[in-house]
């Protein structure tokens, strides 16, 4: 069972369109992070959300953390070809038995923005 479910898995849109991708779980996270990964590269952190209900904006990207800290969304306004990439969410929670916090990644949303 995947701890973090991302949807959609694939998204292909035209330049200028808006889009939203989702990251859902039945578990509560202490924080949630969004990364973008380009082909042949490692993921790069975009934002971290910590407080339930928190909204963060990064230029045309808006990130929201659910009130219950179980889900998150990423909204992109007026998408551009440079937004193309794999978007990954990752939740931080303490491991079983009170062990160290671990990051668990969703499988990602592969976004293609066509010119």
């Amino acid at each position, binding site marked *: 069972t995947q701890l973090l479910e991302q949807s959609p898995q694939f998204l292909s849109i035209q330049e200028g369109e808006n889009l939203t991708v989702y990251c859902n779980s039945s578990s509560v996270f*202490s*924080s949630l*992070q969004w990364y973008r990964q380009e082909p*042949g*590269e*490692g*993921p*790069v*952190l975009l934002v*971290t959300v910590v407080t339930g209900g928190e909204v963060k904006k990064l230029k045309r990207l808006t990130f929201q953390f659910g009130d219950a800290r179980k889900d998150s969304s990423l909204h992109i306004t007026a998408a551009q070809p440079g937004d193309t990439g794999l978007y*990954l969410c*990752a939740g*931080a*929670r*303490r491991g079983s038995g009170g*062990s*160290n*916090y*671990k*990051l*668990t*990644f*969703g*499988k*990602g949303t592969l976004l293609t923005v066509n010119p």
Partner: protein
Amino acid sequence: DAGITQSPRHKVTETGTPVTLRCHQTENHRYMYWYRQDPGHGLRLIHYSYGVKDTDKGEVSDGYSVSRSKTEDFLLTLESATSSQTSVYFCAISKGQGAEAFFGQGTRLTVV
């Protein structure tokens, strides 16, 4: 960019041979991680380290071992490589537990 270097970047090896991947950081971060990334599975944690000589298993640790003898180096060893270990391997570092992770560029490993 965070100072993380993975080596080698690409490797082809035969089934049954030992393989060691190296991750080197210049950031003095306490936590280091090894992930593998596969289509349909996303990023999965293999092992991680929370200090020199302190390591723990992740969700897919079978067939892998790690060592950290210095803060800056974290080694991942496949004792006897199998075709199921063909993957892209990423090293990551972070300052604290569950904190933002900074990733290396990855190592593409093919086991034939």
